[in-house]
């Protein structure tokens, strides 16, 4: 099938929308890995929880934004307690502990969601309807909003990491947390902060994604492998890498499905394998991050 220029433009914009959601979901994953050297599979639980709380709040108040905010705040508190109760105990253990532990948290969390909300898919209406013409193509307005918001969040995270002293400490910790501690900084506070930041961004991703897809307890599962690909292609621990790779993966998925839809599912995996074989630390992963 010949690719029309109009189709290509819309594929590009829609790909950006996907990139936005991927970015929000993976930036936390990447930060957690970088700083604490944990792989936090429970981010997908926060993602699903954010979406479900958004759904419920819309039903009660009719306001999407309030739902989104409540979801993020609720997850913030849950993540805080999970970090204190569970993660604290495994920071010094090998990384696979965090994988299995967070896999358990995810399993239990999704179980709770199923218990509370049931299994049936739930509708969430997009708060911004209509389409916006971009270069002669109509693009759903809500997607454009998601793209803009993702850019805003990236700028915010960038500012936090580069212009604030706490963010500088986080960046230093990504390099070597022990050395940060040796300077006299309480790294555990940094860990808690990073974890709840990651979880709230995941919840935000879930809430934002809800109007585009269906809300089901297992919704995190279908996005897990994509999220991991984004993090790995970009390089674990690198925010810039995460941004660039979520852009790339979004575009590959988008253009892949334009050519032959099944490509969308496999092309990112192939890209990831190629990237790793050429540069074993991902595009922007620091080679000093050894673990």
């Amino acid at each position, binding site marked *: *099938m010949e690719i*029309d220029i*109009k*189709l290509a433009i*819309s*594929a590009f914009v*829609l*790909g950006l*929308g*996907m990139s936005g959601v991927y970015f929000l979901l993976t930036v936390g994953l990447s930060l957690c890995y970088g700083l604490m050297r944990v792989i936090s599979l429970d981010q997908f639980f926060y993602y699903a929880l954010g979406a479900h709380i958004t759904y419920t709040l819309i039903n009660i108040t009719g306001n999407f934004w309030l739902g989104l905010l409540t979801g993020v705040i609720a997850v913030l508190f849950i993540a805080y307690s999970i970090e204190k109760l569970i993660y604290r105990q495994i920071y010094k253990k090998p990384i696979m502990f965090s994988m299995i532990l967070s896999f358990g948290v995810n399993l239990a969390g999704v179980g709770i969601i*199923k218990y509370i909300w049931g*299994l*049936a*898919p*739930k*509708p*969430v*209406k*997009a708060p911004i*309807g209509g*389409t916006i013409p971009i270069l002669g193509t*109509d693009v*759903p307005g*809500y*997607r454009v909003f998601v793209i803009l918001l993702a850019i805003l969040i990236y700028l915010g995270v960038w500012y936090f990491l580069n212009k604030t002293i706490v963010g500088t400490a986080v960046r230093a910790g990504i390099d070597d947390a022990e050395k940060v501690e040796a300077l006299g900084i309480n790294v555990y506070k940094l860990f808690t902060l990073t974890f709840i930041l990651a979880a709230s961004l995941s919840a935000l991703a879930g809430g934002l*994604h809800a*109007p*585009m*897809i*269906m809300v*089901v307890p*297992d*919704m995190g599962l*279908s*996005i897990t492998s994509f999220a991991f690909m984004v993090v790995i292609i970009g390089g674990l621990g690198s925010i810039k890498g995460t941004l660039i790779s979520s852009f790339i993966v979004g575009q590959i*998925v*988008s*253009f892949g*499905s*334009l050519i*032959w*839809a*099944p490509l*969308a*599912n496999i092309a990112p995996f192939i890209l990831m394998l190629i990237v790793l074989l050429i540069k074993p630390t991902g595009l922007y992963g620091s080679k000093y991050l050894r673990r």
Partner: protein
Amino acid sequence: MRSGKRVLVFLLAIVLVAMLLPAIGMSADEPETFNLGVLLPLTGTFAAVAETQEEAILLAVDEVNEKGGLNMPWGKVKVEATVMDDEVDINVGVRRFRYLKEQGAHAVVGQVWAPLAMAINELCKKDPFPYFPVNVAPLESFKKGSLADCTFAAGYTPWTVGYMAGYAAINILGKKNIFFLSRSDAWGWDIGSGLEAACEKYGGTIVGSDEVAVGTSDFTTVLEKVKFVSPEVFISAQFGGDAIALIKQSYDMGLHNEMVIFNSFVTNVVAEGLPPEAREGLYGMHFFYHDLSGFEDQEVVKMAESYVEGYTEKYGGPPDAYATIAYIATTQLFEAVERAGSFEPEDIQKAIMDNPDFVCVKGPAKWRIDHQPIYDYAAFLVRGKGLDEQTSKWDFFEVIDALGGEEMYPSLESLGY
């Protein structure tokens, strides 16, 4: 190493003792209960569907027991159901299937997921056992020699779904230019070949097609393609959660203004998961829609009504399409057992094949030689209602027409008979 040898002797002794205690066969000829094994994917992708199927099966069991039980030559026999979860995993499913058998199940109903149904069918081929899968099974499994003698599938194949969708789009809605979005697995391909057969027969054209994987949540790029091709009708093979995402995104992108959106096999779960405005004007084939008011065959309307009433009373909501497949499978199993007067698979098979006509909650039907039921009303063509047309929580669709009969099924020759 002396201690080691002593251990070996000890072990040998244990083995000997254990062999002297073989499990004594306890199979009585005239059991007092009929043990029904129910194996459904209660967790995993199909959990929402499986939940409704479990309800329907248990309803059928309750109804039989209220009548006193199954009418067997040696008296009334109560039915006892054991429910297990197959987790959409072949190993788990087969293991639990064998548990059910070891626990003395006389028959098993279940499976939404086709590969597991086929794996269990394979076991039943070697070791005959009454097995009634409740899914829409792939075309390949009905090829001659594939199904075990006592495996009866209450659903039909996706081929029929695709054929009916094509028939309805072309002959009833009068839309001849079709874009078909398949699912890249046996389900999608079978629907596709059914659709193609219908197009060939009734003069439709597939002007564009694509396929996406199960579990795809973002369809926007594909939908752009659909928009670009601008067909008269957009038929999709998506099911469950995928269908919700697809239809919602189609609505968001304004596809409903330019073409008819047709989800080939629609269910209430999908309707429930859609915002009302996206549901409005959506067409689809529904295996069984609970509100048949206005349908001409009054016989069917009455029968369906009493089933829906019983179901709603017990579970607080009407039965869905897949629940009804499960209900029909269970009731047909019971009928066959009663007619056979025996729990033996050979007798049950004979009872069904000797007397293949039956009447179920959605009208008359007939078991074909390939173990598919040919329904007079295989599916109902429905149109989604918007918010202002909706009168109650469960009022999702309006029934427009019904399709069925041998015409809608793949020919026996094509299946190797």
